[in-house]
């Protein structure tokens, strides 16, 4: 019975979304308060209905109700509870349901906590949310309904793709979607502001927390995906410039740009129309990402099987959203009031250049990702664009950006003194020299060692410069400990957040550079008692045995690794065969020693010989990737906890700005 309740609730959500999309919009145009007031309750009701649908589907998965086709195709009674639940979004239909649920939660949050927002802006923003909801609800109900039944009820389900039965991947999609869909808030507010014809500091204050939250989630979501690919796929790599990875990375790049340009709008009311454009583009790219992943038109490592009609539907949604919002932008943006002026050497200018680098990077990655499609359409041949392209275009854009990241936060608004800023960074530069020399002396002087060391020096620059900026603001070396603590407490959380996030980026760069430069690997067919060597480690194979997991059978190898006379560590890589579906997965064994991983994969060997193909990797600095991403996400959260970013606060804060101006 429950699936019908869910289905009914979902079907009801569609007309509610339609009402939310058009009634408040009409009310805002007519300045009719009663019609505008429909937006809030509609948004709350929509969340309630979609929440009910989601709960019903989750319940069907937990109860293994195989009369629901979706459950039958993606679940199995023997699956652990966590994967029964994550199975809800481990498939096309369910993941779209999660998508609209998150959209509805964001909309309801605006309705419930956006009391300080001007009525018309709120009504219009919620209306735009309603339109997005309408599109996606129609998509689900007409092409991807998760509640369809099958008769007779199958006795057992087909099971979930074993690759997805993993704790990291269980929470990866919700995180990613919180990011993707979170940018819909910036989009809705941007469209609402265009309708209003007014963008000001207060507007930026309302949009910033949503963008910050979306950015933090997307950062962690991409990180989780990368982490999963690293330990689950058994290739020892963490980023492949694969279309599906790029699909989430491109909105991250423009979202990062948006996050920074919003600061300029908030503080200086400059770059307004650019910021609006970024908000539109970022969400459009999130939609494009959904389309690329869901349509299966690109050959991807992580491709999901798909059905062309769905691709066409998402493409139509994309065309309406992008076409409509850009048309509105073209008509309305020129009418926005011009913003504040600033000199080419200023904080504004620094943030603008940051935006240009990020936007250029996003455009080049987008071009590389879509080029195979373009070439196919123009009959230029069947081709693919791989990692070499992306590395060639991306790295030269990121190096100057990171150099600028060190300087930018120290620049004053309006007009700054570059020589003065650089003088304050002398200590940081000295530190960079030391780190570079140390890295070279520890690695060597081959081209790859120099490149890796240069990457680490770049990270050191960002780290030391961020620290210098923070130390300057809290007057680290000038105050007594008690006063210093007061000062640290008094510094806005947003400033601490920025420092943490920028330092996280530095840590991430150490991971990227170090692992790209100094990764080592070896491969050998091994029997028990034999040893494979990688990066000075002796990894000895002690044989393999068959073990039984909850819903799989596994061949588990036992290895011990030592380096010099060090203590031996035990590694137990597995090769699992799941019962249903009968698929094989590789479970790499990873030993992390703070700064590096030893990574062993057990492959297949010649049948019945007791010998296996074994691949061993030494992965230096890979853990830094995860530390860096966690720091970036944490920086976002710390910044979000800033009093000024609380949803209720903006009005008061805005009036203070007015007072300060007057």
């Amino acid at each position, binding site marked *: 019975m429950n699936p019908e309740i869910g289905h009914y609730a979902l079907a009801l959500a569609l007309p509610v979304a339609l009402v939310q999309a058009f009634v408040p919009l009409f009310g805002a145009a007519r300045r009719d308060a009663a019609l505008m007031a429909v937006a809030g309750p509609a948004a709350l009701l929509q969340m309630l209905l979609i929440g009910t649908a989601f709960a019903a589907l989750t319940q069907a998965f937990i109860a293994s109700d195989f009369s629901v086709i979706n459950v039958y195709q993606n679940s199995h009674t023997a699956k652990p509870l966590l994967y029964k639940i994550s199975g809800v979004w481990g498939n096309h239909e369910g993941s779209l349901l999660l998508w609209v649920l998150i959209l509805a939660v964001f909309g309801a949050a605006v309705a419930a906590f956006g009391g300080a927002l001007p009525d018309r802006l709120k009504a219009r923003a919620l209306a735009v949310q309603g339109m997005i909801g309408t599109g996606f609800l129609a998509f689900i109900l007409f092409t991807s309904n998760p509640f369809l039944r099958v008769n007779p009820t199958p006795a057992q389900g087909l099971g979930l793709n074993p690759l997805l039965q993993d704790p990291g991947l269980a929470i990866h999609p919700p995180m990613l979607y919180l990011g993707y869909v979170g940018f819909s808030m910036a989009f809705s507010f941007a469209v609402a502001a265009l309708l209003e014809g007014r963008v000001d500091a207060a507007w930026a204050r309302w949009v910033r927390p949503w963008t910050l939250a979306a950015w933090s989630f997307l950062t962690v979501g991409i990180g989780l995906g990368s982490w999963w690919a690293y330990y689950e796929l*058994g290739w020892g790599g963490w980023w492949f410039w694969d279309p599906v990875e790029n699909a989430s990375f491109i909105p991250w790049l423009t979202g990062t740009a948006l996050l920074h340009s919003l600061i300029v709008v908030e503080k200086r009311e400059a770059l307004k129309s650019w910021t609006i454009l970024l908000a539109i583009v970022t969400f459009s790219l999130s939609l494009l990402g959904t389309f690329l992943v869901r349509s299966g038109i690109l050959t991807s490592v992580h491709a999901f099987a798909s059905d062309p009609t769905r691709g066409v539907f998402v493409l139509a949604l994309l065309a309406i959203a992008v076409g409509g919002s850009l048309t509105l932008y073209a008509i309305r943006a020129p009418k926005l009031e011009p913003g504040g002026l*600033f000199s080419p050497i200023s904080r504004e200018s620094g943030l603008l250049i940051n935006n240009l680098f990020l936007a*250029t990077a996003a455009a080049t990655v987008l071009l590389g990702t879509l080029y195979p499609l373009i070439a196919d359409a123009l009959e230029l*041949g*069947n*081709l693919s664009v791989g990692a070499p392209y992306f590395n060639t275009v991306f790295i030269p854009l990121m190096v100057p950006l990171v150099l600028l990241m060190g300087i930018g936060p120290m620049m004053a608004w309006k007009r700054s003194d570059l020589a003065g800023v650089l003088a304050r960074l002398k200590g940081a530069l000295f530190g960079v020299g030391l780190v570079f020399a140390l890295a070279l002396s520890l690695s060597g002087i081959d081209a790859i060692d120099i490149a890796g060391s240069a990457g680490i020096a770049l990270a050191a620059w960002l780290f030391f410069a961020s620290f210098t900026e923070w130390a300057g603001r809290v007057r680290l070396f000038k105050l007594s400990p008690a006063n210093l603590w007061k000062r640290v407490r008094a510094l806005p959380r947003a400033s601490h957040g920025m420092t943490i996030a920028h330092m996280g980026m530095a840590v991430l760069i150490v991971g990227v550079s170090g692992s790209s430069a100094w990764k080592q690997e070896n*491969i050998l067919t091994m029997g028990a008692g034999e040893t494979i060597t990688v990066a000075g480690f002796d990894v000895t194979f002690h044989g393999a045995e068959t073990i039984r997991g909850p819903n799989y059978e596994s061949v588990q190898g036992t290895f011990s690794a030592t380096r010099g006379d060090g203590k031996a560590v035990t590694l137990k890589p597995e090769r699992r065969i799941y019962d249903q579906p009968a698929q094989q997965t590789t479970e790499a064994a990873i030993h992390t020693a703070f700064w590096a991983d030893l990574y062993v994969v057990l492959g*297949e060997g010649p049948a019945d010989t007791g010998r296996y193909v074994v691949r061993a990797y030494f992965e230096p600095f890979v853990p830094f990737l995860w530390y860096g991403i966690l720091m970036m996400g944490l920086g976002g959260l710390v910044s979000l906890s800033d009093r000024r970013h609380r949803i209720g606060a903006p009005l008061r804060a805005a009036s203070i700005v007015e007072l300060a101006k007057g």
Partner: protein
Amino acid sequence: MAKRKTQRLYFILLGGLAVATGVALVLTAFEDSIVFFYSPTEISQQTLSPGQRIRIGGLVETGSVNAEGETTTFSVTDTAESLNIVYRGILPDLFREGQGIVAEGYMLASGTFQASDVLAKHDETYMPPEVADAIKAAGEWRGDEPQQEATSNSTMASP
């Protein structure tokens, strides 16, 4: 403080610079990092310079998979022609006979394809689009009925 006109000029200058940088980088990168896809039939019809990076694809021929230590040899077919492939490393979890795969690498002088990456999809019903096209081109495609919907995934093995 700059005048509004000066500021606009500055914006245009920066924007132009960004576009020029982007275009220059893209053109440099495109020159040597685009990889073309060929079917076994196309390979048999033209001579490729040895060492040129290409992608090939087809169905793994039944009975052709042969493992010797870490090296595996197999052949793929588009039903008209077939091509021998040699790969050193651990193949993707769902690499099997009869499965559609895509491999990236280069042709050896012997006419064998040296693969550096092998891409196989994690779903029996999924066929890489290039492989489907290649088989269609060879005139043997019968699988146009809608594919069964299932979440699929794939792995790529890289040495």
